[in-house]
Each structure stands twice: as C-alpha cells, then as structure tokens.
C-alpha cells in the first residue's frame, strides 16, 4: 500500500497555524495486521482525542489521528493559550488533525494519480481502542493499514500522535 505524505513537509504549514516553529518526525511507519490495531495507540483504554477523515467519493481511503489527552491539552495550550476549555481543545485538535490527515489523503491521491476529496473531520474524545476498532469494523474487507507515530516539536513542547492510514488494497 502506498503510504502517503512526508511529515516533514507539514512542518511549515503547522508552524503557520501554531505561530511557533514546528518540526515533525515520524517513528515506526509500518504495515500492520488489523487485529493489532486496537493496541496501536497505547493501551486500548487510553483516553484520546480522535480526528477522522475519509474520502468523500468512497474510494476506501481513511485517516485516523489519535492524540493522547495530555498531548491534546498541550496542543490546545499552544494554539489558544493556557486554560483553554474542552470544546476549544477539541476544536484545536480537529483543526490540526484536519491539516495532517488531509495532507496524507492528498499526497496519497497524488501518488496514485487519482483524486481523493477529504470529508469534513469528525472528532471525539474516547478510549483509543474503541475508536480504532469502530473504524476498523466499518472498513471494507481487504483494507490495508499503515501506522505512524508523529512527533511535533513546537517551540519547547513535544506533542505526540498516532496516525493510522487505511486504504482498500488495489484489485479489490
């Protein structure tokens, strides 16, 4: 499966949004078995902010980004200042998640000489395993999965997220 964007290229885009220098790096990009997915972002019960985008044209491409709660709060502080409320933090994660996930979908489309139109982002706060397994259950049979750990160094903060890219394998 093609694996989408180079996270480094997203740094300047996010720096504009956050107002501080941002450096992105990825760790552990890997194709994984579906059954391993629920444990991908840590323990399945890990409270996380999830941001989800898929292809509006239903071509089977989906991106799920999971921020552990402390990282989500750090992101909210960075974008909105200390003491941001829950809805504001969720909005911040949705906005950043939309940029990152949208870029992955867009680069995936470029790599495949196709066209993917991202849906508006859905977001929630819940157990990581519950979100991942729900996305997985809704995916068609034959879906391939690639996961990445994304680390953002924004100013003096370090924010981690797990990105999961799901894509129908060619020929299905």
């Amino acid at each position, binding site marked *: 499966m093609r694996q989408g964007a180079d996270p480094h290229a997203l740094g300047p885009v996010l720096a504009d949004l956050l107002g501080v220098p941002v450096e992105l790096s990825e760790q552990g990009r890997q194709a994984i078995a579906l059954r391993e997915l629920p444990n991908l972002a840590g323990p399945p019960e890990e409270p996380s902010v999830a941001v989800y985008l898929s292809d509006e044209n239903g071509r089977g491409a989906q991106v799920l980004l999971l921020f552990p709660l402390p990282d989500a709060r750090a992101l909210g502080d960075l974008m909105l200042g200390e003491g941001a409320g829950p809805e504001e933090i969720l909005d911040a994660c949705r906005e950043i998640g939309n940029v990152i996930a949208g870029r992955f979908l867009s680069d995936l489309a470029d790599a495949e000489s196709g066209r993917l139109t991202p849906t508006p982002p859905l977001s929630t706060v819940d157990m990581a395993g519950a979100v*991942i397994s729900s996305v997985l259950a809704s995916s068609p049979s034959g879906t391939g999965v690639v996961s990445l750990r994304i680390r953002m160094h924004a100013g003096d903060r370090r924010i981690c997220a797990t990105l999961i890219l799901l894509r129908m394998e060619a020929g299905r």
Partner: protein
Amino acid sequence: MSRALPVGLGEVRLSRDQSEQLCVFGLGSCVAVFLYAPSVQAVAAAHVVLPKSPQSSPGDGSEPGRYADRAVPLLIAEMARAGVPKSALRAAIAGGAAVLGFTSAIGEQNIQAVRRELLRLGIPIEQEDVGGSRGRSVIFDAGQRRLDVRVLAAPNVNI
C-alpha cells in the same frame, strides 16, 4: 487477586477458574458476548466485530469470534466442552456504541445480530449494557458471574 484474561478482536476465550476475569478493553461498535451458568465456574467470551459472516468465505479460523452468527454457536460449543449444557446457559452482552457517529449502523447491527442468535438458540440475556455513543471496557468476573462496565470518567470525557 483476580487474573485478567483479555479477549482481543475476533477472539473466543474460555475460563474455568473463578479467580479469572475475562476482559474486553476499549470496546466501540464491537459487542462482547459472555456465556455462563448459575453455580458453574466456566465462562466463555467472544469479541464480536461484525454481525454476519460472508457466505463466500469460511474464514481461516484465526478470528472465530469475529462474526455474531459464528461466535454464538462457538461459545455454546466451548461451554459444552466444559460440561455445561445449553439449557443452563445465560448471556451477558455489552458494546455496540456509535463512537464516531458514522459507526452507528455497525454497532446497532452487531447488537441485533447477537440478540437474534441468542434468541434463536434459546439463551436468555441476563445482563446487558449496549448502544450509546461512548466506548466501554467490559470485565466479566468468573467467580461472581457479574458484568462490570467502565467508561471514561467525566474529567477525561470533557478533556
């Protein structure tokens, strides 16, 4: 102290030890099914992902609990192997949430498929916590034969 036995996606597990707990952590649209019987220590659990198995594929046996229509008969067979007749069985079920909104159809279909199979096979549901919009972790205590459900505490849900 109780020993936790996790039941992963599509897995089926049997416990015959009253000090064990069968656990399904981070359950979203999936449904956890537990079969047990009064005064019997054996408990069988399945982590159901989808309502109905594809007709064209018998599966490779690696995820026997993946589909509701295969998982429930398999649980009955597991309990029979442990010496528990079908007539003594009771069920506890949990899960089937619409975690991200768009998964509502799958969660509800899973709930209905599990209920339908249990009804068809004559097994009453004694304990149930299904639907809603939040993920759950589900723990079935083999000794107490009791279903415990955890959701994120309010401070976490509200970030």
